[in-house]
């Protein structure tokens, strides 16, 4: 990532002149200039995509444009934020947290953070994954980009090649202003609060461990557990309990790469929730995807041209509660074939064809996608 030193912007942006009581702004500016190297980082990433649908109008969209700012107060204390524009006009704060480095192996952090689950939720910059669109599993089962406000610890061990994260976080909202929010087709997705005036009634716990001690491959294992949030604390039927488990791997060797992910969520008290809200939320949802890619260009080439194929199988009605019949249309199977042409490190041009069907019929829906992604 490119590091820029922007003292003037920094001073006005972070308002240091007001926060320093033993230096005036000019003194502060001078000492900042002395130590300015690498204190502030600007970065960004984005995706601009074309989606061509079977029997429906095409769509062209600046899907997301994210601006990253990081500021280093000292060697131990860092603030990181990402401001995201979705579809040009929706503005979100995707991350905003303070990280405090306690020891080499232990950091404390607090703020708006990404939930560590699966691959894409934490690593979703366009050039880091194949396919114009993120895997559908990372939309429906793991509702990326999934972030909530919380606090916790993170770190790693160089000896054991092991990374860990453990957070207490706010969770999905299931009931707000007389509305039951969670539905069968996309499970928890509509319950994401994104840190915006979010409802909090119960603390959720999120954890992930990753192992990268074998050459070329890394493994991840994640768990998330708690209850959904409600504005009606007296009505138990407005909440469900949930436990999500995720496992993933990423493999890279020479010109070949592969990744895969499995995730499953079990929900409790779903029958009462569905009955109270007239919803069709499933009680178990989950699935997997697996992907392989091969770089057609020599490894000595600065550019990379990966061709890939991905297969996904996931179901938000894997199990249902209260005698509800599972909806076969919620069991989805998708195959994506395409290419990722990495023009330069950090810039990718992508194209793919997706073949989507459900267990409800043999009908296949095709989708053609093209996009550019960048990350700096």
């Amino acid at each position: 990532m490119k590091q820029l030193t922007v003292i003037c912007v920094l001073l006005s942006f972070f308002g240091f002149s007001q926060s320093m009581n033993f230096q005036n702004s000019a003194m502060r500016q001078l000492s900042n200039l002395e130590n300015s190297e690498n204190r502030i980082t600007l970065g960004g990433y984005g995706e601009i995509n074309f989606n061509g649908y079977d029997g429906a109008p095409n769509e062209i969209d600046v899907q997301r444009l994210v601006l990253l700012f990081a500021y280093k107060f000292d060697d131990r204390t860092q603030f990181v934020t990402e401001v995201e524009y979705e579809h040009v006009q929706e503005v979100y704060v995707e991350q905003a947290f303070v990280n405090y480095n306690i020891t080499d192996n232990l950091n404390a952090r607090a703020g708006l953070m990404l939930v560590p689950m699966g691959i894409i939720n934490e690593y979703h910059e366009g050039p880091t994954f194949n396919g114009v669109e993120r895997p559908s599993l990372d939309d429906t089962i793991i509702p990326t980009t999934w972030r909530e406000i919380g606090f916790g610890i993170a770190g790693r061990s160089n000896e054991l090649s092991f990374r860990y994260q453990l957070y207490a976080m706010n969770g999905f909202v299931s009931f707000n202003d007389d509305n039951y929010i969670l539905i069968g087709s996309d499970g928890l997705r509509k319950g994401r609060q994104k840190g915006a005036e979010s409802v909090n009634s119960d603390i959720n716990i999120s954890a992930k461990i990753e192992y990268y001690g074998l050459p070329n491959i890394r493994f991840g294992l994640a768990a998330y557990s708690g209850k959904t949030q409600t504005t009606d604390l007296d009505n138990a039927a407005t909440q469900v309990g949930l436990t999500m488990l995720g496992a993933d791997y990423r493999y890279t060797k020479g010109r070949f790469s592969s990744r895969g992910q499995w995730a499953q969520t079990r929900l409790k008290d779903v029958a009462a929730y569905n009955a109270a809200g007239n919803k069709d939320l499933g009680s178990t949802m989950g699935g997997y995807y697996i992907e392989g890619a091969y770089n057609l260009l020599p490894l000595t080439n600065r550019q990379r041209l990966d061709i890939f194929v991905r297969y996904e199988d996931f179901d938000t009605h894997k199990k249902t509660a209260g005698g509800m019949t599972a909806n076969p249309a919620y069991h989805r199977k998708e195959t994506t074939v395409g290419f990722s042409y990495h023009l330069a490190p950090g810039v990718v041009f992508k194209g793919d064809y997706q073949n989507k069907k459900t267990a409800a019929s043999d009908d296949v829906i095709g989708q053609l996608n093209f996009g550019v992604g960048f990350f700096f």
Partner: protein
Amino acid sequence: MKIFSPSFFLLSIKVSLVSLVFSLQVSKKAEREISKVFEIEQAVLVQTLEQDMPGIDQDRLYTVFDQGQALGYAYVGEASSQTDTFEYLVIFDTNFTVKKAKVLVYREDYGSEIGSKRWLKQFLDKTPDDRFAYRQNIAAISGATISVKSMTNAMNNLMISLASWQNNGEPNKS
């Protein structure tokens, strides 16, 4: 290239990295690791170069002495991670064969996997004649691409600089 004589460096104030360009944290870790690798109590470090060389600043390369004898060299480098920089240490024997590569201070979470002992082992026993290339002879770490590339390039450039220095008749491999 002249290495300071023992009588000179014992008097020199530059026997510790702490007094030099590095932070206390970086210096302490570097000194501890150097002593560990050479199995000595307290390494005496003297700047190897009298002036900056192409690709190697004089305050980054040190000759490691113990009881008046040169045991090898230590290089403390800096490279970029995603939003910050990190310091790394490369310890060489007297022939500039890598005995150890270690990340001393890494300041963010993303990319911190490059500190993995397992990954850094790839640089062991390499010489200035070796070249490193990401995904060719140096394994990738998914999720740490920026730092892995950065460290790989830094190590590669260091070897190129050392090789050209050696080819110009330096250093004195005493």
